[in-house]
C-alpha cells in the first residue's frame, strides 16, 4: 500500500498520520471506555433489578398494606413501615427547617460583606471540613454530649407544656429531638456551601444597583439577593433534604428505634434507613425480603423528593430569575 502522506515523512517525525498499531490501540481503548460508561448504566439497572427481585415476594405478600401497616413483628410475619415513613419524613423536615435556616443564614453571613472575605474563605473551608466528619462520629457525639444536654430542657418543657403535642412525652434517652438536631448539623454544611455558590454567581452590579437605590443592607439581601439566588437556594434545600432522608448511622444511634408514630419531639421513633441498619444484620429470610421492600420504599421517597425539587427549581428560575 502506498503511503498517502509521503510528504509527512520528509518534513518531520513529530506529526504524521497514525500508524496501524495506533489505530488498533485507539479502537481498543475507545471500546474499553465505552464499556466503562455503559457499566455505570448497567450497575444502576442491576441495583434496581436485584433489590426489586429480592423484594418481589414481600411485595406480593403484603402489597400496599406494607406502607400503611404499623406493625413490624417477625414472629407473626407482620410487616408495615408507616411509622418508619413518618419518622423519616418528620425527622428530615425538622432537620431541614433548622439546618436550612442556619445554612442560609450562614451563607448570607459569609457572602454579604459581614466579615472580611479572607476570613469568609477560612470559614468556608471550616464548613466544608464539617461536612467531611463521618456520621458515626456525630452519632457518638449525640449520645454522649447532646442527649445529656437536652435532657433537663426536655424535662422542663414536658412538665410545663406537656399538653402541647410536641412536648407530650419525656426524653428518656434517644429520641426525635437529638436525632433531628444532629441531622440538622449534618445537612447544614451542604445547604451553606451550595447557597454560598448561588450568592457568588450573582453579578456584583446587581448588589451595587440595590445599594445605589438607597436600600439598607437587609433590604438588599431580602428583596434582591435572595430572590435572585432562589433557585440555587432551593437546590441546596432539596439536596439537604435528600441527604437527611437517607442518613443512616447517626439516626440509628440517636432516634431510639421505636416503632411508633408520635408528634412528640422527645419520644423515640424510627426511620427507614435506621430500620435497615438495625435489623438487617440479624434478619432471617422472611425479614430480609420485607427489608428489601422497605429499601425500595426509601428509594421511591428519595426519588420523589428529587424530582419534586427539580420541578420547584424550574419554577423559581422562571419566576424570580427571569430566565426561560
Amino acid at each position, binding site marked *: 500500500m502506498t503511503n498517502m502522506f509521503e510528504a509527512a515523512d520528509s518534513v518531520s517525525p513529530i506529526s504524521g498520520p*497514525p500508524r496501524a498499531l495506533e489505530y488498533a490501540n485507539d479502537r481498543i481503548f475507545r471500546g474499553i471506555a465505552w464499556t466503562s460508561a455503559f457499566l455505570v448504566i448497567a450497575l444502576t439497572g442491576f441495583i434496581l433489578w436485584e433489590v426489586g427481585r429480592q423484594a418481589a415476594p414481600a411485595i406480593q405478600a403484603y402489597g400496599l398494606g406494607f406502607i400503611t401497616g404499623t406493625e413490624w413483628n417477625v414472629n407473626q410475619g407482620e410487616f408495615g413501615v408507616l411509622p418508619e415513613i413518618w419518622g423519616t419524613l418528620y425527622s428530615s423536615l425538622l432537620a431541614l427547617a433548622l439546618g436550612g435556616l442556619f445554612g442560609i443564614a450562614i451563607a448570607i453571613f459569609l457572602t454579604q460583606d459581614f466579615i472580611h472575605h479572607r476570613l469568609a474563605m477560612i470559614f468556608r473551608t471550616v464548613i466544608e471540613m464539617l461536612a*467531611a466528619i463521618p456520621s*458515626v462520629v456525630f452519632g*457518638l457525639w449525640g449520645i454522649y454530649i447532646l442527649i445529656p444536654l437536652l435532657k433537663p430542657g426536655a424535662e422542663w418543657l414536658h412538665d410545663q407544656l406537656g399538653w402541647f403535642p410536641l412536648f407530650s412525652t419525656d426524653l428518656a434517652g434517644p429520641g426525635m429531638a437529638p436525632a433531628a438536631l444532629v441531622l440538622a448539623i449534618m445537612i447544614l454544611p451542604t445547604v451553606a456551601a451550595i447557597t454560598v455558590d448561588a450568592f457568588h454567581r450573582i453579578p456584583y452590579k446587581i448588589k451595587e444597583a440595590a445599594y445605589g437605590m438607597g436600600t439598607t443592607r437587609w433590604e438588599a439581601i431580602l428583596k434582591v439577593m435572595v430572590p435572585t439566588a432562589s433557585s440555587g437556594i432551593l437546590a441546596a434545600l432539596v439536596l439537604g433534604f435528600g441527604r437527611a432522608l437517607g442518613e443512616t448511622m447517626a439516626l440509628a444511634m440517636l432516634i431510639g428505634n421505636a416503632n411508633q408514630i408520635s408528634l412528640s419531639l422527645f419520644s423515640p421513633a424510627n426511620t427507614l434507613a435506621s430500620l435497615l441498619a438495625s435489623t438487617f444484620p440479624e434478619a432471617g429470610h422472611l425479614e430480609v425480603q420485607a427489608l428489601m421492600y422497605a429499601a425500595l420504599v426509601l428509594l421511591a421517597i428519595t426519588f420523589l423528593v428529587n424530582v419534586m425539587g427539580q420541578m420547584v427549581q424550574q419554577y423559581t428560575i422562571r419566576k424570580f430569575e427571569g430566565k426561560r
Partner: protein
Amino acid sequence: MNTVDLTVDEAERPLPQLARQGLEVRALKSGILTGLTWLTAALAAIPLISVIYMLLMQGGARLFGTGVVEVLTGLPPAGFEQGGGIGPAIVGTLAMVGIASLISIPLGILAAIYNGVLEPRSWTANTSRFLAKVLTGVPSIMAGVFVYAVLVAHWGYSAWAGGLALAVLMLRTVVLAAEEAMAQVPQRMKDAAYGMGCTRTQVIWKVVLPTGLPGILTGVLLAVAGAAGESAPLLFTALFSNYYISQLSEPTASLSILIYNFSGMPFPNQIELAWTASLVLVLMVLGFNILARLIGQPKV
C-alpha cells in the same frame, strides 16, 4: 402661555436627608437582622467546636498518651477487659477502601473519558452521566442493601463485599468529578494534538489526562475520603471482626463500625476507644480532604 417666575429660593428643593438614620425603622430592622445573623453564625459554630473538643479530649487522651502503640495495633477489648486497641479496624478500613479504590477509580475515570471527551453527546454518555447524578441522591445504605442481595446472601460477609459496596458509592463521585476536571482542558490544546495527527486515544493519554490530572486527583481523593468515613454500607456487608484480617473473604472490622458497636456499650474503656477511633477516622478523612485541596489548587 403662562410662564411661572421662579425665584432662586423657590426653585431650590430641600436636600433629602442623606445621613444614616440609626433609629429609622428600616435601619433598625437591618441592625436587628445583622445581630441575628452574627448570633446564628456563632450558634452554628458551637457543635463544631464541641465535636472537635470532645475528639481531642476523649480520643486524644488515649491516642497521644503513653499507650499509643497498643491503641493503634491492639485488638478490641471484650467486656470488662482493660486496654486494647483498634488495630484490626484501621487495617480493615484501609483494606476495604483499597479494594473500593482499585475497582472504582479506573472504572470511573474511563467512564468519565467516554462521557467527557470521546462521545459527550451520545446516548451512552448522556444516560450514564444522568444515572451517576441520580446515584448521588441515593442513600448510601442502598449500596449495602444491593451488595447484600448480590454477594452476601450467597457467600457471606466479607471484605470483598464491603469494598464493593464502597466502590458503588465512590464510582458516582469519581465519574462526575473526573468528567468535570477533563472539561476544564482547553479545546485548543486538544485541537493542536489532533492537528499533529494524534488518534483520540493519544490525545487523551498525552493531553487530556496530564492536563486534567490535578482536578481528577482532587475528585478521586474526595471520593476516597468519603468512602473511608462511610459506615452504613459496611454494616451488613463486611460486618465486624475482633481480629486482623487474614483473608479478604471473611468478616472484616472497620473503624466506623467499631465506633457504632462500642458507642452502645456500657463499659467506659470501650467508649473511650470509640472516641479514639473517631479521632483516628476524622484525622484520616481530613487528611485525604486536605491533600485533595492542596493538589487541586490552581498552580500560579
